[in-house]
């Protein structure tokens, strides 16, 4: 809807509206102010409304970056404002209705019910309304692809790093072999160290992600003036990360250690 807010004072009891926070901030409007709204850009047929409240618009990723200059009117006021001159009242119609269910899990059943009982009306669950090519489905697949590439690259990097770290200790391992420590004893020691480092690393990674979660969200919420949450570290995500990181770290340590222990203690010690 096009509107041209004009601040007026002391208009007699105009109908109330709510305005979006962004609009209030950009036009310096406050509760109690009176504005004039029009359905046309030239301001024709403008009507006065009193601001009864300021609301935070529901974050919408599809409208990221758009300035939300929005108002919410009572339905009769909206109809009166937008009705073409000469069109009688009561002839309006709606094309779409959003229905919020108490239990979102009932969406499929509900949509089937409505479709069966009201021929000509199509009811679709919001999550499946866009099918397999909806922007969020595509976005999720994109995230999955990035995650897989990241994990593969991290694995290679981790293995290289672990080989270097274990190799740094080749003299120590060689001396231990020479004075009579069995390979398995050294391997167990390195395994324990690897497991502790992997657990500590995973814990550090989680703390870092929790800390950066707030920073990233605050930055982008400030950047795009939205309440949208960009990053969320859930217990499920954390568990998956730990479940991947710890075995990877331990596995890399064992692989690198085993490669080292296959060599003669004397050659290791002589470096």
């Amino acid at each position: 809807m096009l509107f041209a807010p004009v601040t007026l004072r002391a208009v007699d009891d105009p109908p109330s509206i709510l305005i979006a926070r962004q609009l209030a901030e950009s036009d310096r409007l406050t509760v109690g102010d009176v504005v004039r709204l029009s359905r046309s850009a030239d301001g024709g047929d403008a009507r006065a409304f009193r601001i009864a409240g300021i609301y935070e618009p529901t974050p919408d990723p599809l409208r990221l970056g758009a300035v939300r200059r929005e108002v919410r009117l009572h339905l009769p006021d909206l109809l009166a404002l937008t009705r073409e001159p000469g069109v009688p009242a009561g002839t309006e119609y709606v094309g779409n209705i959003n229905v919020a269910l108490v239990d979102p899990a009932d969406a499929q059943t509900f949509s089937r019910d409505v479709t069966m009982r009201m021929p000509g009306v199509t009811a679709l669950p919001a999550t499946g309304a866009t099918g397999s090519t909806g922007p969020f489905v595509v976005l999720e697949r994109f995230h999955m692809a990035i995650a897989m590439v990241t994990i593969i690259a991290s694995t290679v990097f981790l293995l290289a790093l672990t080989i270097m770290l274990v190799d740094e200790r080749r003299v120590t391992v060689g001396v231990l072999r020479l004075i009579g420590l069995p390979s398995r004893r050294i391997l167990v020691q390195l395994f324990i160290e690897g497991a502790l480092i992997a657990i500590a690393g995973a814990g550090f990674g989680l703390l870092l992600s929790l800390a950066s979660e707030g920073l990233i969200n605050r930055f982008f919420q400030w950047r795009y003036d939205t309440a949208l949450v960009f990053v969320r570290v859930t217990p499920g995500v954390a568990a998956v990360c730990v479940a991947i990181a710890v075995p990877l770290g331990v596995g890399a340590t064992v692989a690198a250690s085993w490669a080292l222990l296959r060599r003669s203690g004397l050659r290791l010690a002589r470096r």
Partner: protein
Amino acid sequence: MTNDSVRSSVNGCIVEATHVSRIFSMPAGPVTAVADVSLRIAPGDHMAIRGPSGCGKSTLLHMLGCVETPTAGTLLFQGSDVATLSDRQRSLLRLRQIGFVFQRFFLLPMLTAWENVELPQAEAHVSKPERRRRTQELLEYVGLGARADHRPSELSGGEMQRVAIARALANRPGLLLADEPTGELDGATGEQIATLLDRVNADGTALVIVTHDQGLAGRATRVLTMRDGRIESEVQS
């Protein structure tokens, strides 16, 4: 196996090598480091192995110490054929029955002198009070009782070699093997180490030293000279 059993092993020998050879597979072809060597080491022996570089004396020493296994022949350690022992069994032999001293000391740099000497005992499951007593005794034996808390980087070459000798003796081995133990030391310090090794041998530990140092070899009661992987001569005094 116990240390006492080492001293009263089969035929009075700690080690008995019969026609042992060691051939290394190299990219350019097999290299024979030791060929058809036979020898016996009895408790209390003091043997030196001499010879030019590359003649196989270090490889022979490593076989005697169960670091390498022969590719041919039989090597019995305390009556057990080394070739039939698993890696773990050979490791435990090295831990409990054999002491090693190397030219480059091979101390663990992050541990103090005390910890370096205590480590083999801890791995051999010696009780803590016994470890403490033995470590103190050994560091005093090698004249480093006052340097127990020093790390290798804070010790001189001679002191590091004395710590290495104390470590090699930690589990009361019947056999001490030394590979060029004075090779990185000046004359006076080398003399101190040689005297210390003599004392170790006089206290009952069989000693085999690989050396280029004629003075050090001259202290031994048996001197083997090697050439091209074979024993060229053996002189007993």
